[in-house]
């Protein structure tokens, strides 16, 4: 058996759950992560109304202003300003939009490709299965980050390129899991009856197999959201992600690195905090969904 490169990213929960996390839950729904993701989504949608300043244009007379509660800061720039005098808060608000759009579309894109190929591979079997699974294994062997950097350096930076790249890198995770499920599904009675009833292969895959694997795909997607957002931030940080002056959190961290040594901590701590909040929420939600809806995935 070969162990895929990034398999370690997926968490393994175990039955007696962490007490502090359980305490955060109202009933059984993980309320805190849902609320955080909800707030980030709202902020992303209403960025234009919420942001006090233009996120891309700063005033050079107001460079490196600290947050308002630190001496030298003012309430005009609540979270301070960066090296070009741009308002950090406004950039964080618009950054939420970038993270949300990239995160969700990339997960969705990877999910569609991966699920489709997983179903085809698992149901048809034979050489189709061999080809798809060999490609999946090889792509899984490449570290996701390295593969993404390679693709990004070929196609050049842009937000939609990043979405496509992340989709191309991460569909393999879905394909593996979905194929495994299809292998056991296709031996079940209802699929055999469908064959006897004369359904075409396409119909069986679409009408009988797909609805049964969609749960796993959604759970996996939630778990992938955190991974995808981290990868996007990393690519932006390295300069092959979302191009400047677009306000992406990873890009803000990269800009903030210059000011870090002189102690301009707000340029690192705020965008970093946003990334952690969002990823943590996505992971908590994904863990809960997995335990709740898909016992089979617990082993991942």
């Amino acid at each position: 058996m070969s162990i895929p490169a990034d398999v370690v990213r997926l968490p393994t929960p175990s039955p007696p759950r962490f007490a502090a996390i359980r305490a955060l839950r109202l009933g059984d729904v993980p309320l805190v992560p849902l609320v955080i993701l909800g707030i980030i989504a709202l902020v992303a949608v209403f960025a234009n109304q919420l942001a006090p300043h233009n996120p891309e244009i700063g005033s050079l007379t107001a460079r490196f202003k600290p947050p308002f509660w630190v001496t030298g800061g003012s309430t005009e720039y609540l979270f301070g300003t960066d090296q070009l005098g741009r308002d950090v808060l406004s950039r964080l608000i618009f950054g939420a939009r970038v993270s949300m759009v990239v995160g969700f579309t990339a997960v969705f894109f990877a999910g569609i490709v991966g699920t489709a190929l997983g179903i085809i591979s698992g149901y048809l079997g034979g050489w189709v299965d061999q080809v798809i699974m060999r490609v999946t294994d090889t792509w899984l062997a490449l570290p996701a980050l390295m593969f993404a950097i390679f693709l990004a350096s070929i196609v050049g930076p842009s937000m939609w390129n990043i979405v496509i790249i992340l989709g191309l890198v991460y569909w393999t995770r879905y394909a593996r899991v979905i194929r495994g499920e299809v292998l056991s599904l296709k031996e079940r009675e209802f699929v055999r009856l469908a064959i006897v009833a004369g359904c075409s292969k396409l119909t069986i895959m679409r009408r009988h197999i797909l609805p049964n694997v969609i749960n796993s795909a959604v759970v996996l997607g939630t778990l992938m959201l955190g991974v995808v957002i981290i990868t996007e931030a990393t690519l932006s940080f390295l300069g092959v992600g979302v191009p400047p002056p677009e306000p992406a959190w990873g890009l803000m961290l990269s800009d903030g690195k210059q000011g870090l040594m002189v102690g301009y901590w707000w340029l690192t701590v705020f965008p970093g905090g946003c990334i952690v909040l969002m990823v943590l929420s996505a992971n908590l939600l994904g863990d809960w969904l997995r335990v709740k809806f898909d016992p089979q995935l617990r082993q991942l």
Partner: protein
Amino acid sequence: MGQYIARRTGYCLLSLFLLSLTIFFFVRVTGDPATLLVEPGASDADIAAIHHQFGLDQPLWTQYGLFMWSLAHGDLGQSFYYQTPVMELYLQRLPNSLLLAFVAMALSLLIGIPSGILASVQVGGFWDGFGKLFSLLGLSLPSFLVGLLLILVFSVYLGWLPSSGAGGPLNLIMPAFALGWYFAASHMRLTRSSMLDVLGSEYIKLARLKGLPQSLVIAKHAFKNALIPVLTLAGINLVIMVNVAVVVEVVFAWPGIGRLLYEGITFRDFPIVQGVVILGGAMIVIVNLFVDILYAVIDPRIRLES
């Protein structure tokens, strides 16, 4: 056994072939590779010359043949920026990356194994909860952020550790921690589940029935067997560490292959990017093969099963 090794080696070769095909395909399908292979700002005549020099005016399968031919000879092209072969640059930087990866691995095992054992001994207890929180943070904190925060605390405010470059052992501490952080969480989880597996087995019950004290059962009987999967994962992770250290190496200006890849990106030095990715992928595929074979040697069930 021979048959098993032959089949695994076959798969490995197939993977390497697919890897080369993937890289070859992506470079060509996304546009004119000549624009990647000339220095920025080259004239049309230069581009035409490159087309001819690299055989880009020939049919695709001939091009692929040429590509594989030079790969087989260890020729990954010439860096524009350094004006030296990529292979040479790679080998220069590799020792630094290995050093960083070894120290990071040692740190992650030192943190991961004891905390995993503690968590498995008292499932649902304080240490288990603490471990859960720790592994959740390990998954959710990107390594470059850990690196930046470490710099902020230990270099900027406390002034204890140098923030960048290579040199003394002090330079290694923060990058190793930033890199090992995430892997510590994964080693912790695996140690925990592996310990739980072993602790549930018959021979542990026997050891307990004999009246051995808890500490002896865990330290002597359970720990040794539980360690096997963890060490296997650590072996694979070591190779992955070498290849995913890009961000950490960038944050701490550590002169490893990750930093080389970053220089390749920022100077638009495509041969470097391509070379590092090819070598990284090949390294991982080959290590996976070794692990597969090693598994089969240790555990006959694996080689008989498939």
